């Protein structure tokens, strides 16, 4: 009986400490990155003011960095976060969007049915 309880607790612990526990952070990171890509796309078209673009880029990068710190060790999203944070503030939207797609794929794989 004790062994069964231990097994269940271990499984629950593994589930909540690993992949699915990272899901909220990955979603927030994906959205912040998507917002960053959108801002850079619109800024490149000359449709944003400089203070707005700068403020939004800074906020997006801070959000990505904060969520990256919340990821568990070995999370598949960690390399994506690193790749995003290595990009310059005014990076072209496409490289950011590629990382958004990667994060969306990781989300889909972790999402419970």
């Amino acid at each position, binding site marked *: 009986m004790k062994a069964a309880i231990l097994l269940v607790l271990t499984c629950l612990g593994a589930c909540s400490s690993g992949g699915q526990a990272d899901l909220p952070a990955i*979603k927030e990171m994906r*959205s912040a990155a998507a917002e960053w890509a*959108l801002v850079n796309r*619109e800024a490149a078209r000359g*449709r944003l*003011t400089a203070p707005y673009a700068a*403020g939004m880029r800074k906020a997006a990068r801070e959000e990505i960095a904060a969520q990256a710190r919340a990821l568990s060790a070995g999370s598949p999203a960690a390399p994506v976060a690193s790749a995003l944070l290595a990009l310059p503030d005014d990076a072209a939207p496409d490289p950011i969007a590629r990382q958004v797609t990667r994060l969306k794929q990781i989300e889909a794989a972790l999402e419970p049915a």
Partner: protein
Amino acid sequence: MNLLELTLGIMTAVGGFVDISELVFAAQAGSSYGYALIWVFALSTIGIMVLGEMSGRVAAVAKQPVFNLIRHRLGLKLGLVTLIASLISNLITCAAEIGGTAIILHLLTGAPMMLMAVAMMVVLIGTIWILPFKWIERAYGLLGLFMIVFAVALIKADPPWARIAAGFVPQIPSGLPSGELIRFAYFGVAIISAVMFPYEVYFYSSGGIEEEWGPKDLSINRLTCIVGFGLGSLLAISILSSSAALFAPLHVDPQLPGSAVLEAELPMGRVGLLLALLGVLFAVAGAAIETCLANAYSVAQFFGWEWGRHKKPWKTPRFTLTWIALFLLALAIVLTGIDVMKLVEFAVLFSVLVLPLTYLPLLLLASDRHFMREHRNGALANGLGWLYFAVIVAAAVAAVPLFLLTSGGQG
């Protein structure tokens, strides 16, 4: 009926309807669940129309502001619990509004956010100190009409109108995994809370007393609540719908407080961006004033102090010190650097818990033949009042479990 007064009252209600919580939850609801949560906005808007009208009628006929009623109908102990809970709820909401204005000013000017929070505080305190009550409310409400840019942007974005119309029918999206269903429910509760914030009723009914409403003003009260709140809600629904049409395909669930204005920028360019920033700034600044004054009204009414902005600030010293102290406390919360989005989440959570205790005494008095005479609730107002009381009790019971299960709506 003075047509100018009526028009200004309605326009003020429209411009002042959307605050930081509605902005955040409408944008996130649209990107996450498409048009499926529009009906919750519509349902909650009818609720705030019913309860707002009732609070205005009670103020006009019985000359009773809401916190007088709470103390007398709930008794001292439960009244005090309600007072403390609503103080916490309004204080967090006020801090969220001030933080929101600081972010918008930062995005408009590039100046540091904390400096902008302090500057905004000085402007807000100066506004309340200098302007007469009617113009405190109107100045920000009318300037908040810049928010109409969100409705214009939605039209320009040419969204799927049939799907928006279908969103008014109560629904739960099919095929959502269990976690997303719980999050959908959390958003439903958060929208009810954001639309029916208790501070709106405290402020509205106290405003009725400030402006010395009488039975002759009941038609203006009714029209302001129905038309003003109804049109204001359409702005919130525009924000949700634009988010569904423009953000969802780009995988954006607006997490950053400045994101929602992109809904106006995408179809309208830089002009849309600037108008949306100004609209949000004034609407949220107006809400900061309302939450702060609502708190000061509550405390003064509960303890029987002299209160009101129709009197000079030094004639009501305890009331004046209370609203200034509450503003400074809210500013202190912002200056800790806490995430404004977190403040918004806590604000809606606390508010929904306070809602039933706010509305019960109001409902009881609005139906009271002795106080309200021929202006007491009719069958329709009573039926809707109790129906919405049941809705907010259910929302209050569900709020904390849903908040914990979804980590504040994160998933």
